[in-house]
């Protein structure tokens, strides 16, 4: 079972219903280490709900999520973050009143040693004590992380570094998305889920983002990507999965999926609504 070892994320029959609507309908998926899979599909196809199920923000009604062989179905988001799963959000969820630096530092939260004195029950109290006393080791760790954040921000050129102390609410929309990705990278993720990283970006910005994702992939990061911009999907993805009305309707290399009649029908059938929604 050589494949077992290289599979990082595996979904089996993952299902989520909202009332009468089945938002995610028996989805199977295998993501290998270092692979980049894109999930495409019309709006409302269930892509973001699928992300929520994988990252613990929502619980499936049926099905199993395995991460590196371990069953993680129904784990809390906190635990999944600690396991090395990082995500960005479709509508952008930066911490508005926190500076760019602090936003990205939150990304490194699971790696802070000051957070987890390994003592049951009084662990949180020790955390409080360490935060107040701030011994040299805690200070050094904080300094090291701050340097790391600057390195991460440097990936975005001069977009974020000059604004490092500005509160996130004052940033442009595109910059907030960049902060989200920087925050996800600060977690040093083993699996990265990107939910429409280029939404609301102009062509130049989109090209920049595409370059960054390509760079991350080249560095060996395993990535699950939701994206509407097909050109980017075709260039980056090892495989593409197409969802419609909660179901997986096609899977395979980009070009093959693109020509699949079911995919064409799904897009044309929903074409109008899709246009309207992406315009909104």
């Amino acid at each position, binding site marked *: 079972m050589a494949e077992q070892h290289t599979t990082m994320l595996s979904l089996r029959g993952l299902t989520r219903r909202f009332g009468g609507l089945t938002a995610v309908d028996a989805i199977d998926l295998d993501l290998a280490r270092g692979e980049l899979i894109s999930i495409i599909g019309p709006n409302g196809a269930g892509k973001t709900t699928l992300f929520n199920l994988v*990252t613990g923000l929502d619980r499936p009604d049926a099905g199993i999520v395995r991460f590196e062989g371990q069953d993680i179905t129904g784990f809390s988001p906190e635990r999944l*973050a600690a396991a090395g799963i990082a995500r960005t959000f479709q509508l952008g969820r*930066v911490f508005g009143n926190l500076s760019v630096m602090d936003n990205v*530092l*939150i990304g490194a939260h699971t790696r802070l040693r000051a957070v987890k004195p390994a003592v049951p029950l009084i662990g949180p109290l020790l955390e409080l004590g360490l*935060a107040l006393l701030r011994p040299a080791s805690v200070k050094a760790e904080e300094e090291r992380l701050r340097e790391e954040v600057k390195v991460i921000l440097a990936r975005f050129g001069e977009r974020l570094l000059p604004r490092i102390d500005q509160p996130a609410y004052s940033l442009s929309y595109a910059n907030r998305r960049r902060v989200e990705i920087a925050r996800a990278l600060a977690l040093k993720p083993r699996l990265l889920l990107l939910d429409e990283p280029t939404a609301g970006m102009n062509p130049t910005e989109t090209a920049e983002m595409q370059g960054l994702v390509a760079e991350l992939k080249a560095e060996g990061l395993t990535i699950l990507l939701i994206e509407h911009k097909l050109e980017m999907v075709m260039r980056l993805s090892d495989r593409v999965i197409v969802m419609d009305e909660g179901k997986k309707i096609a899977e395979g290399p980009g070009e093959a999926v693109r020509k699949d009649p079911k995919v064409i029908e799904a897009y044309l059938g929903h074409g109008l609504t899709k246009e309207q929604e992406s315009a909104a």
Partner: protein
Amino acid sequence: MSSWLDYTINGLIVGNVYALVAVGLALIFGVSRLINFAQGSIYLVGAYIGWVAVVQLHTPLPVTIIVVAVASALVGLIIERFGLRPLQNSVRIAPLLATIGISFVLDQLVMLTVSPNPRALPSQLPDIRFQIGGGTIGPLDLLIAGVGLASALLLFVFLRYSKLGWAVRATAQDRDAAMQMGVDVNRVNQAVFGIAAALGGVSGLLVGMYYNQIDTAMSLQATLKGVVAEVVGGAGNVPGAVIGSLLLGLVESYGVAVFGTSYRNLFAFLLLVVVLVLRPNGLFASARQAPPEPLTGTFIAPSRPVRIPRWALLVAAGLFAVLPFFPVSFYVLQTLINAWLLGMLALSLTLVAGTIGQVSLGHAALLAIGAYTSALLSLTFSAPVGLAIIGGGLMSAALGTALISPSFRLRGHYVSIATLAIGEIVSLVILNWESVTRGPIGISGIPPLSLFGYELISPISIYWFSFIVMVVLALLQGRLLGSHLGRSFRAIRDDDVAARAYGLSLNRYKSLAFIFGGFAAGVSGGIAAHLYSYINHETFNTQQSILALTVVILGGLGNVVGAILGAVALVGLPEVFRIAAEYRILIYGIVLLLLVRFRPQGLLGTI
């Protein structure tokens, strides 16, 4: 056996009265996702208008009811137009705070124009009782039941068959969609506030007649009961509010039957907490349905905090430290001692409400826990006062956090309701747990402040003691904010979903915030107990909780320097301007309203 029927009838009648308040709350929540804390004040206003009509003008009953309904509706319209509509595009905490401010202003206006003393509100119906089965029922009971049913029927017809009623329902279902379809949301809001106020006012009138007594303390109780009934039935659910009200009435009535009158409210608030924890969407919603999120997202006004240079803070602290060397009167020192005590409470609340975003309306309970613990430690166990105060702080931290922990999964308005209820529960437990707290008699003869065996009796020594304690707490809090915990708290406040996705445990960090904040508040309560030498279950009340919240908003949410500045300003300025005590709460209410309207980020800005 017969008495059980009586208790059931009584429970249903009282429940009917609660329903009139709760239905209004549910309507308002439905269209504007707002829990209207001023609803009880309208109930109060209704009761007093009824009193004027009955006692002064001798109006017949039907006229009295119509006068009360119309006048109360007018008050509701005024609140909507001038208090809430200007806040439509404001941060979502603003309307909640505004209704609290409006409630204070209305209550105080009634108190100042009439008098705080209870008045008799005679029922205009003959005093006869009919026998049914083993119980009795009077004309007033029937009137209340009739008014309840008639209002329900009228409301049903209005919502179902009138155009404006459709608009109300459409707005409740999806405000944005309704607006796009051309529904005039302002008119809907007006209609809803008018109806809610009319129902609330009539409810106040009926309750006044039922007990033949009205007083200004009715307001808060009515709001609380209405909120309990509404949340039990499911926020925004109108039929649910009616059932929740009847259930609340019965639970209270049976509770009183078994345990006694002083337990009435305890059962109400326990019911609320149990429902909030187990079924936050109310009894009639499905458990897996996503909880409504009335107050997430842009919870707090974004602002750039005013940076005060370190030297300026040092100079200010130095000036206050040496103040007693100057020829200042004891009166000034006494005022500042009060400011330092309030400052400690505000430090606690600014951390909890500002930094981690849990807007607590029951913070005075932490004072009470600290005060009682410290008083009992020094009296019963002869503990040195200094240690007793620290014990009070620790007990507040531990017990306060434990009590509030079931509500950690709640968000927005629900946190405020839960903390308000928990605050009331603490006060009621103190009242009823006589073997430990001495019940309604309170604790007297609490030893004065002392440190290492030296009694601190002179105002100067008390001044320094409280000032130093507050400064130490402020420095610690500043240090906390500069650590990874400060960052984590603020992240949870800004977006708890994203925070969880990055590994922040909400329970852990909310607990830590309440532990730290609980300690500061407990110490403040402990010092107060030894200063006052007498405390009872009413020493630390909701007014103080709201005053602390006003201080925190005045200073800027989460802002340590702002909390102290706010405390000095709100304690000091009324003294400077020699404002009579009875006008102060009115002024605090007006300050809160003005802040929410014109400077929601406070003087020094949110941190």
